[in-house]
């Protein structure tokens, strides 16, 4: 970009000379360029670096957006003899929330999930990741259970299929069983109201 501008400025300067403009005029244009170009480049650089301050390098974009939700069949946390599979949610917009009783941020986002459950806008399935079922159950008793049901992924193999790399993570799945969105990190009121709920509303409206 900078090279182009330098070249075009020199061409303009040369044309001006041929056109008979005084050499003083040429040099002032050139001086102006010499002064402003580095300034422009500097300002652009500062802008990019400033933007960089607000990026989260830990956030890995999901490779599964707009792809079918990976199938699984996992035991339910509260009824280990029964299994749940995402196919059962066909025709519904639903959330899959990855959590664990060992995960501090899950505790932070839990009140927001409880609120969401009270609103009854969307079923939330809990994905209890690499947790001790007993600890998980008492955790839900202690902090409330916003989940329609929870499944236990004891060895974490299903989580790998979902591209889970930490907890909490929240997937939004549409009626056709496609993953439409993934939120990495804890949900709060802002995420819920500005991102998840509008998206859920749109997906529910879509046939």
């Amino acid at each position, binding site marked *: 970009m900078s*090279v182009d501008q330098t070249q075009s400025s*020199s061409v303009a*300067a*040369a044309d001006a*000379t*041929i056109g008979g403009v005084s*050499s003083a005029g*040429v*040099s002032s244009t*050139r001086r102006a360029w010499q002064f402003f170009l580095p300034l422009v480049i500097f300002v652009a650089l500062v802008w990019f670096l400033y933007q960089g301050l607000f990026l*989260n*390098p*830990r*956030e*890995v*974009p*999901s*490779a*599964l957006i707009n792809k079918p939700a990976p199938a699984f069949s996992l035991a339910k946390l509260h009824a280990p003899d029964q299994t749940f599979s995402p196919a059962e949610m066909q025709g519904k917009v639903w959330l899959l929330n990855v959590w*664990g009783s*060992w*995960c*501090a*941020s899950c505790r*932070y986002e839990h009140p927001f999930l409880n609120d969401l459950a009270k609103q009854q806008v969307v079923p939330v399935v809990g994905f209890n990741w*690499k947790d001790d079922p007993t600890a998980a159950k008492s955790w839900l008793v202690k902090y409330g259970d916003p989940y329609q049901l929870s499944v236990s992924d004891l*060895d*974490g*193999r299903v*989580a*790998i*299929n*979902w*591209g889970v*790399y*930490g*907890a*909490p993570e929240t997937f939004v799945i549409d009626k056709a069983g496609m993953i439409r969105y993934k*939120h*990495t*990190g*804890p949900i*709060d009121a802002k*995420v819920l109201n500005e991102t998840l709920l509008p998206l859920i509303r749109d997906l529910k409206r879509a046939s």
Partner: protein
Amino acid sequence: MHLKPRAAIAKCKTLINTGIFSDFGLKMLAEWRVWFSGNFSKPSRAGEVRADGFGKHGTRTQCTASTAGAKFAHAAGFEKFPSVFLPLVRGAYTCAVASVVSAAFVFLSVGVVSPAANAQVQTPEAGLPSPAVAKRLKTLESELRCLVCQNQTLAESPAGLAGDLRREVRLLVEQGKTDAEVKAFLRARYGDFVLYRPPVDPKTYLLWFGPFGLLLIGAAIGWMITRRRHAAKAPPLTAAASSVEQASQQHARALLVEDAHAEDGRK
């Protein structure tokens, strides 16, 4: 300074049992942690507070080479601590464990089986792979990125997820999958990010060829500067030169010469 092995073992055991590593010590610390985090620490921005190896705290705890210290810190729930304290606390733990372990090694000819010594052993994966598989795993794991400790390969990372992924990679290799298939498996789940060597496609052209582009631009600028310097060194015009020659030379120079230095030459 001579210490009998038996006495040394006893000393180590007392240290371990009565010290901060005992159940009581851990519980006390955990209680204090809950009280502390409840009163002072507030989760800040999304992504920063994930204690499982995501946010600042978790990452520091899980993604460290000093597994011993990290394990104790983890057991005590230290990953939930405000980030300022974590390095200090973890450092203290690491030092303590290291001193106990090294004391054990210095004083004893036989290895002491203590919690501290055990803590340094990484979780063993069931059974040893065959040499051929092991060799392939070594190469593969060093080309795959751990999603939690993002500056470490799967081979290096002590994070829990890295262990799961290593197990998955080994399963795939033992099923007879090629290296490309294993990488495709992980790429389908975690994206290009999981590969330490990103693929060459339109999205990564800038990444792969950008440096060469910058080099070319640099070379072009260097060439222009050299040409300008060269032009500036040309002898000033003599009065004897004809007006036609003078005009054409001036034109030529206007194209070449750009800095104030060059203008001096034209006068």
